[in-house]
């Protein structure tokens, strides 16, 4: 069985998929299938004309991760308002639309249930029994950058007379045998 720390580490990797986003783990709660994690994701990009950053997104996501550390799905369940309060979403339609790899109705139910339990501030632990408080765990951001460069293709080209036909045929034969 995985620990909360392992679940957080996995979700950190998951959120790094989106190179623009950084996020904060708000709450980690165990549930029978694994871990339910709330993340506040922000999309901060530099204003090209000024020296400061613009925050494009402050959404709250719920990420479900099973005992084997597979991410079952993630949903947008709320957003951070300008006054600092978290606004919960009470809809079901768009939540279901965002569900990945999980039955839509189940996703809707889970999302609605979790939306009821969103804490009112960063760093506040879950109200459910067994909730684990993980305050301000920082997910390193990776930015999508504007780059100029003076090449189209890279790399030194080496042409050979090597063939791989025999290896491919043998590997195909092995894979066919394995299927049988």
């Amino acid at each position, binding site marked *: 069985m995985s620990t909360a720390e392992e679940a957080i580490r*996995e979700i950190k990797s998951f959120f790094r998929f989106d190179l623009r986003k950084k996020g904060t783990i708000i709450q980690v709660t165990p549930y029978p299938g694994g871990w339910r994690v709330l993340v506040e994701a922000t999309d901060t990009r530099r204003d090209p004309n000024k020296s400061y950053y613009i925050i494009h997104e402050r959404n709250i996501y719920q990420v479900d991760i099973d005992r084997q550390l597979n991410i079952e799905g993630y949903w947008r369940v709320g957003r951070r308002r300008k006054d600092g309060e978290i606004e919960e979403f009470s809809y079901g339609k768009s939540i279901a639309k965002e569900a990945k790899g999980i039955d839509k109705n189940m996703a809707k139910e889970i999302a609605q249930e979790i939306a009821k339990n969103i804490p009112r501030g960063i760093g506040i632990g879950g109200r459910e029994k067994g909730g684990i408080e993980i305050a301000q765990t920082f997910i*390193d951001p990776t930015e999508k950058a504007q780059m100029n460069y003076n090449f189209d293709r890279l790399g030194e080209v080496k*042409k050979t007379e090597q063939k791989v036909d025999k290896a491919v045929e043998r*590997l195909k034969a*092995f894979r066919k045998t394995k299927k049988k």
Partner: protein
Amino acid sequence: MSDKEKRKTKRTKATVKKEFGKGLDVGTAFIYCAEREKGNIVFRSQRDAFFDIEPGDYTKKMLNKTGVKYIEKDESLYVIGDEAMEMANIFHRELRRPLRKGVISPSEKESLPMIELIIQSVIGRPKCKEEIIYYSVPAAPLDADYNIIYHENIVKRFLEKAGYTPKPINEGMGIIFSELADEEFTGIGISFGAGMVNMCLSYISVPVVTFSLTKSGDWIDEQVGIALGETASRVCEVKEKSLDLTDVKIQSRIETALTIYYDNLIDYVLKSIKQEFDNNPKMPRLTKPVTLVISGGTTMPKGFLVKFNKALSQVKFPMEIGKVKMASSPLYAVAKGALVAAITDEERLEGGTRALV
């Protein structure tokens, strides 16, 4: 278009169709890509290192004039590839390396967009929609506490964004696919890369035991650099250009130190493999002697295979080792094996369902 031209175009398209699939080796020091061109394999290699220099219009003009590749990002100018290494040595500074010990370096996160650009510029555009590309990933390290999931997923994302269908392949398994078709893909593949040594024991194309070690070529460079007060980049240059492990009499001080650390590395790798084989409950009972193949940039100095064989004769593995050989192209073996896997997958797809890009 005349009928003759139409037939010619049709034939050309048919030939191209058979050449889908690419193999990519994302190494700590180099990125290698393998693909087919008119039935033969074409490799592309790029050093994945960069060196930051003072930006300016004059500098850029000079770099353009001399054909030096650069990336300009956030008001900084980065020279990339072999020229970066040359400049690092001229200025007696260390190169910046986006990968460390086989995976994307945690201290070079800001360079992620540059790694993405470099990878995409090496592999080029896919030849068909969602062309399959196998990319190498290291095995879990025995001697360090980090996992490879982040690295694997980041590279996967880069390749997806470029329009490919990426599939990971264990680095050691890449060597097996490349070199051991005649042995029914049974044997041991060891890749001595820059950041890691990767080992795979395969039985009829199935990886049975895989692991990596975090001491390899870079470790040798660092240790020699520390011992002699040189930069690792300078040591690496000597290692790549002139090291001969067979003739110790004519060696310079850097070469002598390199030879000592090479002995140490080979000894460490063989002892670690033996220990893992002895303790691994998954070890198959192999009745025939198995072939062992070595590859990777760290094996390139003259005399490496002799040293390896000498050290191997003093270690007793739980199975009999038959032939010990160097990969046919030690630098490209992993990419070639990844290409074999990609072509196999591509050819399993039904013909006519792949749209040309």
